[in-house]
């Protein structure tokens, strides 16, 4: 396939390999969590292959086990996934010219890691021919490593002690990615505001602290842009 031979596909692929190690640890823990919460083997496999959204899966598990009304469980997952709605507005700037079916397929595979790596590789939201192969390279490796690790977690659930907190490797991966994005003072401040709000608003239900924190970080960045319009040229 010409896509796989494209150098940008390989670049997206290789940019994803290092952080995906942490993401895979997270996937493993999610696989373990599904089985330990009482989901059968086949349902756990179905869940990881279809849902492909770790935080929403972890949020929904206790509700499924408790037999909560379906709309409550779906609404919970929707709120946990609200950050993807923000990402999708960003994706639209790059991929708005593609046919709808292709846009939606792309969207389904557009996880956190792919979003952040893509925005780092292509800071200007202007369509370029390199973007589609880069996206699929990154998305392919993310899917393989997450699903592989998650299925492994389903299989070896009984042998992985949860008190090891292995999922924290995923946090460390995203931490390294965060550091690699901190380019100027404004991004430091926007990140600081988002971190503070995410912790301060933690008591909000349905993980709404996350989307609140994103909005606060973006607002802080915009205020700084407005206050320092004549400062040095942008490079975020």
């Amino acid at each position, binding site marked *: 396939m010409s896509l796989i031979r494209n150098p940008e596909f390989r670049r997206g692929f290789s940019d994803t390999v290092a952080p995906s190690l942490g993401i895979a640890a997270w996937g493993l823990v999610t696989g373990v969590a599904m089985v330990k919460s009482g989901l059968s083997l086949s349902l756990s496999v179905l869940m990881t292959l*279809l849902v492909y959204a770790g935080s929403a899966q972890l949020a929904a598990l206790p509700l499924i086990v408790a037999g909560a009304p379906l709309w409550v469980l779906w609404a919970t997952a929707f709120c946990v996934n609200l950050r993807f709605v923000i*990402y999708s507005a960003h994706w639209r*700037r790059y991929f708005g010219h593609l046919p*709808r079916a292709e846009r939606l397929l792309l969207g389904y595979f557009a996880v956190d890691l792919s979003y952040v790596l893509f*925005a780092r590789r292509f800071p200007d939201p202007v369509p370029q021919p390199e973007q589609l192969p880069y996206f699929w390279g990154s998305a392919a490796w993310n899917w393989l490593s997450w699903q592989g690790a998650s299925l492994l977690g389903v299989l070896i659930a009984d042998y992985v002690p949860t008190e090891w907190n292995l999922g924290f490797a995923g946090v460390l991966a995203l931490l390294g*990615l965060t550091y690699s994005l901190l380019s100027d003072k404004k991004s430091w401040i926007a990140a600081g505001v988002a971190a503070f709000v995410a912790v301060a608003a933690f008591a909000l239900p349905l993980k709404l602290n996350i989307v609140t924190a994103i909005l606060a970080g973006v607002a802080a960045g915009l205020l700084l842009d407005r206050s320092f319009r004549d400062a040095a040229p942008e490079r975020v």
Partner: protein
Amino acid sequence: MPAWYATLAIVGLATVTAVTRGFFLFSERELELPAWAVQGLRYAPIAALVAVISPEIVLTDGALIATWQDARIYAVLVGTLYFWWRRGILGTIVTGTAVLLALKIGLGW
């Protein structure tokens, strides 16, 4: 938990994934965003990352870490030092996780 209920729940969750990730990709009409929103999107990736990880790092059951005997503190410290020394994400994960597991398994932190 009946199997039909769990299956329906999972299929619905998959739909939620597709709907949220494709939210602004669905419409065939041009998405007209105000200029400030377009500019603000530049900050969305970093804000989203720290929003996801900061509670995982500093909170235990919704309260700030209240003890020094928490392996996460040292895992983050070592991972952070590694990153600013070598600028490598892989090393950040490996060193941080090594410290985490050593303290968890060795000292029970």
